[in-house]
């Protein structure tokens, strides 16, 4: 069976005062389809960089990223974008809802970009909204929502177009403990019920404990914490 995600020898560095600061230095791992993986690590260890490489919004200096067997590093910018559009869902730490769209429109954005918006997709979006407890807030603009509510919308948005792979970058990092727990529950539940593969970068041991597998980013490499 083709793994949902395979990272082979990823290297990534950033220029820093005339030198290159190496963030990722030979990252290898394989994630099976439907697996839920947490990546832990201190700030600045390269977790978010790794997530950017996995979804193809950034490219490694060396190595390759295979999502469901497709090598993202071999694709053009446009091909990577289209791949992301169809196969990847993303939850950001700071929610990143689009301020000019209503909650429902934010949810429908990935479907709209996919060009498949119809009654069924809209019904799914409304269903997801109900499942995150915001059924009556579809017409509201994001700036009227609390941080926790915004992140619940972001979780729903990451799943609305049925992606193969869901990536979450510190999804509870900007929330208080209780709200973070609610969002973690939702993410866990929705991913599990849809049988999606999830890679979540987090500092939260509580969130990590819910995952099938835990990895740690250390000195530019991934170490298995709990297989």
């Amino acid at each position: 069976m083709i793994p949902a995600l395979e990272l082979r020898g990823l290297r990534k560095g950033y220029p820093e005062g005339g030198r290159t600061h190496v963030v990722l230095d030979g990252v290898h791992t394989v994630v099976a389809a439907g697996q839920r993986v947490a990546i832990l690590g201190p700030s600045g260890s390269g977790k978010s960089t790794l997530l950017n490489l996995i979804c193809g919004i950034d490219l490694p200096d060396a190595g390759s990223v295979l999502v469901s067997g497709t090598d993202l590093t071999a694709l053009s910018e446009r091909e990577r974008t289209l791949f992301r559009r169809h196969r990847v869902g993303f939850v950001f730490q700071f929610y990143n809802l689009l301020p000019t769209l209503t909650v429902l429109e934010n949810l429908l954005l990935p479907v709209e970009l996919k060009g498949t918006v119809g009654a069924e997709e809209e019904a799914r979006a409304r269903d997801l909204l109900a499942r995150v407890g915001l059924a009556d807030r579809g017409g509201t603009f994001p700036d009227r929502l609390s941080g926790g509510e915004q992140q619940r919308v972001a979780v729903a948005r990451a799943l609305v177009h049925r992606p193969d792979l869901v990536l979450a970058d510190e999804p509870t990092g900007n929330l208080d403990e209780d709200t973070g727990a609610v969002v973690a529950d939702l993410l866990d539940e929705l991913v599990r019920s849809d049988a999606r593969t999830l890679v979540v970068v987090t500092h939260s041991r509580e969130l990590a404990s819910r995952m099938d597998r835990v990895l740690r980013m250390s000195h530019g490499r991934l170490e298995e914490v709990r297989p």
Partner: protein
Amino acid sequence: MKHPAQLVLSVLGVALGVAVVVAMDLAIQSSREAFRLSTEAVAGRATHALVGSVGGLDEALFARVRLDAGVRASAPVVEGFATSPALPGMALRVLGVDPFSEGPFRPFLAGGSTGVDVSALVAVPGAVVLSSATAARAGVAPGDSLSVRVEGRERRLPVVGVLEPADRLARAGLRDLLIMDVASAQELLGKVGRLSRIDVRVDEGGAGEVQLARVAGVLPEGVRVEPAGTRAAALAGMIRAFDLNLTALSLLALVFGMFLIYNAMTFSVVQRRELLGALRALGVTRREIVAVVLREAVWVGAAGAALGVALGVVLGRGLVRMVARTINDLYFVVSVEGLALPPQVLVLGALLGVGATLLAALPPALEAASAPPRVAQLRSALEASARRAVPRAAGAGILLFLAGGALLAVPTRVLAVSFAALFLIILGMALMTPLGTVGLVRSARPALARGGGILGTMASRGVVTAMSRTAPAVASLVVAVSVTVGLGVMIGSFRGTLTRWLGGTLVADVYVSLPSTQASHAEGTLEQAVVDALRSHEAVAGWSTYRGVDLSDRVGPFRLVALELDPRGEAGFDFLAGGGAGAFAAYRRGGAVLVSEPFAYRRGVAVGDSLSLPAARGDRRYAVAGVFTDYASDQGVVMMARGAYDAAWDDGGITSLGLFLRDGADADAVVEELTARVPEGQTVMVRTNATLRDGSLEVFDRTFQVTAVLRLVAFAVAFVGVLSAFMALELERAREFGVLRANGLTPGQLWRLVTTQTGLMGLVAGVLAVPMGLVLAWVMIYVVNKRSFGWTLRMEVHPDVLLQAVALALAGAVLAGLYPAWRMSRTSPAAALRGE
């Protein structure tokens, strides 16, 4: 500086604004300076001048002034204009003097200092002296002859000397002078026995009063004593309205530049709200924050002003030719050698640039100081307060608009008041544009959502939700495009009115005149033999003759035209008041005159009033029988029957001739035959009605070239402003675009999103600019033009001008959006998400 392009655009905006103001000022000042130097060179050190009416003075008067009145410091002068094939495009001022009387007046002719033996002027018939620079340009030296044309006749004049001016000013003053002996000049200019004026120099104080009284005692009727420079001042005054119109237009460009600064400084403040909030938390006072922002503005303003002054000098070199040509076409002969660079113009331009920058930076500076002493106020809160400000801005705009309207209603002829009102109206309408933008964008949203889905919705909502950025950009574009609409409609209306007027006025089939140094009217005197030869052509069924002379009264110069009209010629008058059979009867009898609208407006005369004109033997009064439309001279024209003119002035000349052809005659063929009848050696312009009309429209189009340049520069400034605003807007949305890209938005879709939004803003600006432009056109046509030039134009709105404006705004905005779109589409989504 995080975004150096923003800084560059700000500096460029100020620079362009300052450049156009400086360039226009330099062009006008250079023309005025050239005229002043030339006039001073001719006037010399005279304190007074004796001047007559049409045809000047009898030369015998000179002897009476010198001998009977005992004023030894007096000199006869004969003046006129000539051209030379060796000096193309240059009108030469012929100055006929008596070298032996010149000592107290024009030092360059006094001998000695310039090394010219001026006595040769007297000894050699037709001899001429010119400045060394002009001689070099014409390729002549002492001993050669210079070919000149006067009133269509070509003559070769022996060059007996060249003047070596002592300094730059003297060189500029002498460059267009052809100096001759009085007798030679009289002969050349067809003024035998006549003088243009007699210069006198009297002592200061009581002794001078006594000398003037003695002079007055020997003067015949119709000759008066004027302080030196009176006529020059009157001539210079002719272009005051022209100057002010150009200056006001150039100031508009600076206003657009202010929009740009406002944008850039606001952007810079918004970007640093966190920092400013932190500084406030650390104890930095509001006043100190304002000072920090204003200090930055001073640097931007200073850099922009320095660049603007340099650009202004470059642009001024091009504009000075256009301005000088327009002055030549419409007002008086001036020959501009180069760009004068008066330091006060450059300093004023620089100060204006820095001042405008500080003024534009003040609102963002105050906003920066209002940042709470904690971490940044949310951008959404800022935008919410911007949206709340929209109705308030519209309210303030309405008040300013009404204030401008009220100011326009003030019955004054002070042009500055009209322009102040115009600026208030523009500012008022600019403040109303955010409300108009919100309304239009909201009404366009359903269509955009249908056509573009969520991206279409985002494009339209983005305009309203980012009001703090979009409002100044749209307002600046609206103002720039509305000015384009306003000027376009005004020029179109003027051209339409002029075309109709020419069609109605030029009723003869063929017009005959001498080549003129000025385009707006014929000059010189047709030889009677030529007139007779042309009138006797078998195809000619009737004729009208015109005699145009320049007179002056307390208001300023005007033109008196004596008409011997074919009955068909009377149909050429379009009366605004009076006219009709009774008026024509009074006019034919000689007791009444017809005056042009500008003449009536400037002097406040109406039908039934009495008018005093300086006739050959003293002032004569005439009744005003009609006020007619006329667009040939904004100084005013008085028309009287030829008989009345002959009775009051000793001048039998004919300036131009209108010929009515028999039915079926081919005007073009007749023109060829008539031209063949002109004696050899004389150039007479024989033109069909259509050719003359086309020529007049050509002059009109040339006149508005300066305006076209100003429109272009103003639009360029607005374009830079919009580019800057859009860039700020899109840069601020970098994270938003990063999210979209992470969600699968392709670079192509990003392009479409950005250009749809900027295009929408352009379209909105174009649509809003149309009514605003029409209001501006109305004010310019019915108030500014009337008060500047005294004529009424009929407002004509051609749909193509309006469509062009909308297309211009749309194209400008889409173009301005291209760079931010390109930049955003090339930015790595990861970098955008990191907030880089």
